[in-house]
């Protein structure tokens, strides 16, 4: 016991515990999601931390053993619900790899636009909530306006805002309308100024820098050992990005940089996410340009020609008998999948989102496992906050971008 405590006389027989246990329980004011941290504090410093997850375990993997491929897409929406289209398109890419379907170039470019918009939406939430947790509320309100614009773009394409269930195996359900392209252009015109202003609010703001620099650092070797991927790994200095290392969906034709940090603390993670948003916008501009360069037949196609797996258009489903039957057969899984085992991964907003599917030739997967990045890097939380202060615990939790739906599945 240090000198300060000499004046405190505890009654005889009482237990002298040197640390306080604080329960940062499943419901906590920072609206991140439901997971629990039990912290052992020595004054204000954190000595140990135990995590409990599973407060929103919805048994996706068991549900998926009963559902056919299209019926699993709404489940993938609810993994990382801040960027649902990315999960949907990742799942469709896995199905296409399993079924051996090749998508036309235009579909790839349209998919890239939607995926990068979803990435921007997710990084926006993460960074603005880091701001809210360090006390700066206005950044959040300001950028949510632009998230609404991204939601409007999703609505144009698939009809829904948040849990989008976007696309089909082989492409999209309908071509992007002119309004969708107008809205994407509007977003590209207006958003850079907003992001610049958001950066001006935070990047060289002394209070924010003092809060976040040095909070929760991790070295590159420890990060790799813990299975980190995504912006958290890139902030630690490793330039591993699934879009570059094993490109999917024509990413190899696009030119973009991978921002990396050095110390892996909260400030680096914040900056890496901001820089990734700039790179995403660059990719969207290139995609729009490539779309304009496509000629003839290629310029109007929006799905691959696979009638066994692509749902027929709705006008036909409601008027013709064969189309109705095909629609029913495909959704209910009357068409059997080929046998095989496949692991496919995409660069989701939090890291490498992987789908491991074992198919035994029936209508549903024999086993479907989601490799969820949040679940894997949350294990490192104790190492990140040990020795830090209580407020660091909150900032580290929000800068890791933990989404409870993805963590528990």
């Amino acid at each position, binding site marked *: 016991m240090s000198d300060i405590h000499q004046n405190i006389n505890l009654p005889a027989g009482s237990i002298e515990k040197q640390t306080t246990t604080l329960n940062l329980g499943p419901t906590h004011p920072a609206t991140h999601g439901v997971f629990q941290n039990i912290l052992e504090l020595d004054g204000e410093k954190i000595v140990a931390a135990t995590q409990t997850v599973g407060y929103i*375990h919805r048994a996706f993997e068991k549900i998926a053993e009963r559902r056919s491929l299209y019926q699993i897409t709404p489940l993938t929406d609810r993994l990382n619900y801040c960027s649902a289209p990315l999960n949907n398109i990742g799942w469709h890419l896995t199905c296409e790899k*399993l079924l051996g379907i090749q998508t036309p170039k235009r579909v790839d470019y349209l998919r890239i636009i939607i995926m990068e918009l979803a990435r921007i939406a997710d990084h926006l939430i993460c960074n603005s909530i880091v701001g809210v947790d360090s006390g700066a509320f206005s950044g959040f309100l300001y950028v949510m306006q632009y998230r609404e614009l991204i939601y409007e773009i999703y609505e144009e394409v698939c009809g829904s805002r948040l849990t989008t269930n976007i696309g089909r195996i082989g492409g999209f359900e309908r071509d992007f309308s002119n309004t969708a392209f107008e809205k994407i252009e509007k977003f590209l015109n207006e958003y850079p100024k907003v992001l610049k202003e958001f950066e001006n609010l935070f990047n060289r703001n002394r209070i924010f820098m003092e809060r976040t620099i040095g909070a929760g650092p991790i070295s590159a070797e420890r990060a790799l050992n813990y299975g980190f991927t995504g912006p958290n790994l890139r902030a630690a200095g490793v330039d591993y990005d699934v879009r570059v290392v094993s490109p999917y969906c024509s990413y190899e034709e696009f030119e973009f940089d991978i921002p990396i940090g050095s110390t892996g603390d909260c400030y680096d993670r914040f900056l890496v996410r901001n820089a990734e948003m700039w790179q995403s916008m660059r990719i969207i501009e290139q995609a729009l340009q490539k779309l304009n360069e496509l000629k003839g037949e290629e310029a109007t196609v929006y799905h691959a020609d696979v009638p066994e797996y692509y749902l027929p258009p709705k006008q036909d489903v409601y008027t013709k008998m064969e189309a109705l039957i095909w629609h029913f057969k495909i959704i209910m899984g009357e068409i059997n999948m080929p046998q095989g085992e496949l*692991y496919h991964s995409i660069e989701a907003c939090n890291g490498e989102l992987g789908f491991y599917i074992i198919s035994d030739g029936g209508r549903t997967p024999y086993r479907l496992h989601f490799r969820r990045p949040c679940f894997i890097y949350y*294990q490192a939380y104790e190492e990140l906050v040990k020795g830090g202060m209580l407020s660091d615990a909150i900032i580290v939790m929000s800068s890791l971008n933990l989404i409870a739906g993805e963590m528990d599945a």
Partner: protein
Amino acid sequence: MALTNEFIKQKLIDKFGDQVFAFEEQFGLLSFHADKEINLKILSFLKEDETLGFNFLTDICGVHYPDQKGAELAVVYHLHNIKENVRLRFKVFADINKPEVYTATGIYEAANWMERETYDFYGIIFIGHPNLKRILNVDEMDYFPMRKEYPLEDQSRIDKDDEMFGRGGSDHFDLGKRLQDSVVENEK
């Protein structure tokens, strides 16, 4: 030398002989089975050998094959060599009456929660794990839900009618009796 699947396969057979078997390549990814006693030796060999360098553990999951007697529970490891972009998968099998596998936490820290999840879902005991408790389900649960014999739905719920979903509450549907019952109802 480029890290091809043939090269990896050859190195593994050279080192472990017939303890690794069932090599196959699906969608470009090499996959093999191994005895569960040597899973740690394989993992550390794959990680530390300079030519192989699989320093990233992508995923650990479990699978239940109720038809393979004596080897019902499988643990699947996915590894990745980030520099060369080569992936690898290997499986170890355990008997359902003695589902014990050595833990990989000493080699990769990432294995900690992944193995807890596999334990929670399948009941595979990882020997040497620092904290083998349930992670996603409630602590009081006494069965391992992802095994094939257990149903998805909570059987004690009363607000949803299984008949409507084709998962009959009644084991066999007798049309004659149903019609008779409805005639009796109408006559009352």
